[in-house]
């Protein structure tokens, strides 16, 4: 890990099995960015964590890595956080008794939302209502919003959430069209064929407050484009270096402005 004292550091919170997070880490390091990877499944194995909540509002967290070459890292070093966490299944508790395992799982799943919410840096995908996951209607509500803007919705989205995921997995990758909404910008995979709807315009109109990926399936008829998947954990590798550049630019820009507060803060609002 490369991290000089005043360097902008990007925190990536992701599960151990998240191949897209792994791609992002490698891409960021190739790009020369300082990255801190925090995997909840490695808690107690690779690092210890502390979240301090203070009545003066100066909340802080600290990550103490058992690898001395990494050492202690405090949350004030972090300039941008990428949150890809969903439900945490704590592996180290798998062999414990069921009651203990359930309790530990609840506690760990309750801890990380607070840790993320306490960060002062910008977070691409903030915690919603105190949970790492979204409710079962999340994708459907986005489907309804997109449909109102002329996007047809695939019937698999109307059923069990697993049904849409299975459909996505089973689809021919060459028929998928995807867009990433990140920091008020729309990204699409390089060379993606044009579609009959201006999705970038639609997303800018809807302006999600969190990172969001939209995936549609393109039928044989050019006009047959149907929404298949809405996610807060995008397939980042599809967006390549343009996404990595945008992320590092945001991380650096925000970090450089840190002493004066968040650059997107209204100019007349007092710094607190």
């Amino acid at each position, binding site marked *: 890990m490369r991290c000089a004292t005043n360097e902008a550091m990007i925190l990536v919170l992701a599960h151990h099995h998240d191949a897209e997070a792994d791609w992002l880490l490698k891409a960021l390091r190739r790009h020369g960015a300082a990255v801190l990877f925090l995997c909840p499944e490695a808690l107690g194995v690779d690092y210890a964590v*502390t979240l301090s*909540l203070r009545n003066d509002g100066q909340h802080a967290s600290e990550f103490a890595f058992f690898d001395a070459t990494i050492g202690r890292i405090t949350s004030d070093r972090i300039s941008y956080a990428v949150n890809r966490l969903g439900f945490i299944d704590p592996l180290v508790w798998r062999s414990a008794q069921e009651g203990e395992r359930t309790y530990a799982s*609840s506690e760990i*799943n309750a801890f990380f939302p607070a840790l993320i919410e306490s960060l002062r840096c910008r977070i691409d995908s903030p915690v919603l209502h105190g949970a790492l996951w979204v*409710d079962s*209607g999340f994708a*459907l509500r986005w489907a309804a919003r997109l449909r109102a803007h002329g996007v047809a919705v695939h019937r698999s989205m109307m059923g069990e959430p697993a049904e849409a995921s299975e459909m996505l997995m089973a689809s021919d990758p060459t028929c998928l069209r995807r867009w990433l909404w990140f920091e008020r910008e729309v990204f699409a995979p390089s060379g993606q064929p044009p579609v009959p709807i201006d999705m970038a315009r639609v997303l800018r109109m809807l302006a999600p407050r969190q990172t969001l990926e939209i995936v549609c399936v393109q039928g044989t008829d050019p006009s047959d484009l149907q929404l298949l998947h809405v996610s807060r954990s995008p397939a980042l590798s599809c967006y390549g270096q343009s996404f990595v550049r945008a992320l590092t630019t945001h991380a650096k820009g925000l970090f450089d402005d840190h002493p004066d507060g968040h650059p997107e803060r209204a100019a007349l609002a007092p710094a607190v």
Partner: protein
Amino acid sequence: MIILMGIPSEPPLRLLSEACAAKGIEYTLFNQRNQDGWSVEYDPFDPAASAMSNGETRLRLADCAGLYLRTMEPTRVPEWVASHDNAPTQAMFLQLWRLLDDEAVPMRILNAPHVQMSNNSKPYQALAIRAHGLDIPETCISSNEATVREFLDRHDAVIYKSISGTRSIVKRVDAKALEALPKIRFCPVQFQECITGVNVRVHVVGQQVFATRILSDAVDYRYATQEGKSSVLEPCELPDDIAQQCIELAHSLHLPFAGIDLMLADDGRTVCFEVNPSPGYSYYEQHTGQRISYALADYLACGGRA
């Protein structure tokens, strides 16, 4: 018309149904003991056309003003356990949660399922509490034994309790707890400075506030009798600014109905411990006569999404 969902004999639901009857507010019970008899029609592209029916009654949600949600985990209902085929009930609940979480459904819901999730993370709530001006206890949540020992050294007395919504008895850190401290390595534990003062439970219903003072010699008054101690509950008035902060806090968490645990600390602070999204208000109403159920009935009968 309002809909009351849950187990009819459970005190919060029972008091609310009695309040509706006393006020002449029409209501329908979704008796969870008969949950397998209900079906839900929900079209995310036309949420206002949603309906619920149990074979005898069909409720168009556009005709309903409000819904009180006090269901228990569906799989723990005895009839679920006894049934061989729960797939239809499971599918019904999936539609129901989607329906109740849809902000385009034009009725008051106390409280929608997804906004209740904040109850699963007490420190997440603490961040919202502090942001709204109420005091919070100095808190250290850690899997690092050395850091916890430093925290313990800084405070005269410290308690520990669960981070999640799992109900746990608040306990003081004592010699036995210190022996177990190395176990925190794989699961962070929440430690807080021990604050002494008077417990106050505040129920927010829309823009109304009901404050109940609890006089108890137990560390956790909910378990006073288990400790051989006692609790006395009485209505009290909050300063206007604190009452307003409670209302704003509850609504910031999208909870028009909330049970807020305060302590008027001996050092002058007004410390807030947590915000309960599905409070068992009946315990307080039955001990004090505060008409929380009446306020709930009025709130739900007003209609329109809050």
